[in-house]
């Protein structure tokens, strides 16, 4: 008899020791995880001198002026809109394109689909520097060195991980349901939207989160594609704000608050999306 079983026998319903232990462990790990972020938070209310001399100390006054100045320096409202727009559209493109192709690849187990899968997988391994120049030259020649072009590029770069995830978790969608729907007279798009995708809700949310997050924080690609345009993303705004502060050194009193406010939207979205990552969502659907 294991320890857990023994405990369960002795304390059938009330608070199980194992659960308490798990909570304690989780809290400890959470504290370790949050420490660097707390560091970021604390230093977003301090001036340059205070940050450089004593980064760990709590600020004497929690001065919000630094947050305000930062927001102004990076034109928060407009760059937030730009970044959100780019991220949302890119993620949408990635989700649609990758789920469609993964679905078809899993349902058509042929040499072609295997080769295609390997190609998508291999694409994840290509270092960005090796495609950077030809890619941008090509897009520039096609007059796509701008925001729409950037979205297409994200669509392409995000494919690999998205296809990989959908391909892997497509197993939780049984063919039988699709067959049943087809027999009922559903069109392919209806099957996709109402049968396949709902069962892959958890995976879709994972894809949205993983892709959305790196696009939100991405710096190099926007820099090369739209860097010299007046419209900028959050990361680009931060870069320019830092740039104009001096040839050397870092304006930490602007950087820390800027980073903090940049990641807050993503955290909020992430919290909201948690509802979709539910246990047994796919399992219960299979039962029917």
């Amino acid at each position: 008899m294991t320890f857990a079983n023994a405990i369960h026998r002795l304390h059938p319903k009330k608070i199980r020791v194992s659960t308490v232990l798990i909570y304690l462990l989780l809290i400890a790990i959470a504290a370790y995880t949050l420490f660097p972020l707390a560091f970021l938070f604390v230093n977003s209310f301090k001036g340059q001198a205070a940050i450089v001399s004593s980064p760990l100390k709590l600020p004497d006054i929690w001065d919000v002026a630094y947050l305000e100045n930062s927001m102004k320096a990076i034109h928060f409202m407009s760059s937030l809109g730009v970044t959100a727009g780019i991220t949302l559209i890119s993620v949408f493109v990635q989700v649609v394109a990758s789920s469609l192709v993964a679905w078809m690849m899993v349902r058509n187990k042929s040499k072609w689909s295997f080769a295609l899968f390997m190609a998508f997988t291999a694409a994840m391994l290509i270092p960005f520097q090796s495609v950077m120049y030809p890619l941008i030259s090509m897009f520039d020649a096609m007059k796509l060195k701008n925001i729409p072009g950037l979205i297409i590029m994200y669509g392409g770069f995000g494919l690999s991980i998205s296809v990989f995830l959908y391909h892997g978790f497509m197993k939780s969608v049984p063919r039988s349901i699709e067959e049943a729907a087809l027999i009922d007279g559903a069109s392919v798009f209806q099957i996709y939207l109402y049968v396949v995708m709902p069962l892959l809700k958890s995976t879709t949310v994972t894809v949205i989160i993983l892709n959305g997050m790196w696009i939100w924080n991405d710096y190099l690609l926007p820099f090369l594609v739209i860097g010299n345009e007046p419209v900028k993303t959050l990361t680009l705004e931060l870069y320019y704000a830092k740039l104009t502060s001096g040839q050397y050194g870092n304006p930490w009193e602007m950087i820390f608050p800027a980073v903090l406010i940049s990641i807050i939207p993503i955290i909020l979205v992430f919290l909201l999306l948690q509802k979709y990552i539910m246990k047994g969502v796919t399992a219960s659907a299979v039962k029917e």
Partner: protein
Amino acid sequence: MRRYGKIAAFLLAVTMLAGTAGACTNSNKASNQTTAAQNGTAAEATAAATAPVAEGEYDFYIFNTKGENADALQAAVDAYSAKTGQNIKVFSLGSGTNASDALNTEMNSENMPTIFSIMNIQELKTWTEGGFALDLSKATNSDFKALVDAIPSSLYLTNDGATNYGIPYNVEGYGYIVDTEMLADLFGADTAANVLKDIKTATYTEWEALIVAIGAYIKDGTAATVTLSGNSYALAAQKGELASKLTGVFSTAGSQTWTYGDHMLNVAIDCVFANSAAAASATPEQLDLLKGPFLAYAKALDLKTTYAAGADGALVRGPEFINTTTAGYDAEVQLFADHKAVFMKQGNWVYGNIQKVNADIVDTLTFVPVKMPFTDADIQVPGMTVDSVSRSIPVFVPNYYAINAKSSAEEQEKAEAFLVWLNTTEEGQKFVIEDMAFIPYNADPAVTKLSNSLGQSILEYMSTKDTVTNAYAGAPTNWSGLTVGQKIMENYLTKEAWEEQDYQDIADYAIAQWKDMAAS
């Protein structure tokens, strides 16, 4: 689910609107947006093939890699545009790998910049090989030619010493920055001015004695008497308010290899090579002549890093000496601004950084030369003596405006006219001096007065011709800070005591690496 769906759709619409509204101001908008994902590549390719090459909506394009003047340059361009009715595109960014990638991308595109930045002789190699850098003697605009001819040959952007490819942005200089108020605190308010004058002309022996004396003073208040340029000065018996804050003599940035691997090393190189072009064409025999100067460099570095200031007390060589967080550029500036150190080896670019953390100190700052124990045998440059080196600070051009030889003749003409306006007219110079806070390369020290104390100090050195160049820029790429500086950081700055053998090893390593890297 439906409710979340509606909210999500609404949010999507709002942000898409915002994003699209932002994108609409982008002049290069493609016709397809959301459907571009599906049929973008094929359709756009055919469209581009049949459409004529589009002329940009601007007259010419400036690509600026001296990013800290971004706003000021934009203001200057706006003023010039208002005057001439031209539409000029400016893009500014800092130097670094991303900068070269961005510039390369632009050079590969249809919209090449007509004015772009080239930092030094090493970068020049690429742009001349590619045929992008215009030989300025071939410029078409006559006013521009006059401007070019007026540039002294010591400030040329050149690989052979004769052909000039760039107009300097400005000049910068570095040395030991000292607060005259601190000197007043240490030696008495009435003798501070003389102390400063005599430090500038002091020999290395006197300098070393000064450092040791101040070090002892900080530690236990021993108020010794020091000799500077033959005159004796006594440290104040009672520590003044500023002097009490001192924890060390020098504020250092141990983790920043460029401070000792580029700038400090440069002073030694200046003894043998007059400028970067001479350094770039150095023969192995000439390189061997660097042994003496490099030994002097090692000794001077040893002195400096032995008397370094820390946040709470003296900073001793060891692992803490090279921490990026406590021994970085910002920390160095902070220590100096907090009066914890007497000297900080930096350049006039640091003015803004100091001002941000302690605005009270900036008006009383000035430069003192970087001293090293050179002997007459070490000096190879004609006209230079140990005395002249020890009185001089390196003044150099950090970046140049270059003209793109591959741009159309019309664009080149307009770009040249702009540079003439910027560098010769009063209006243009106002932007350079006040908004960009630069020292104009063609400044007349007798006439120009800068409000920036460090800039003014450099002008004074320029007026008495007590300057040397940045010959290190002619050394092989990455040799200085990234190789020699790196070696020193990893092996010596963590070592508490240096011996004679260490000096030898540093000097030998530097020379050997130069030979090696120049050959490959």
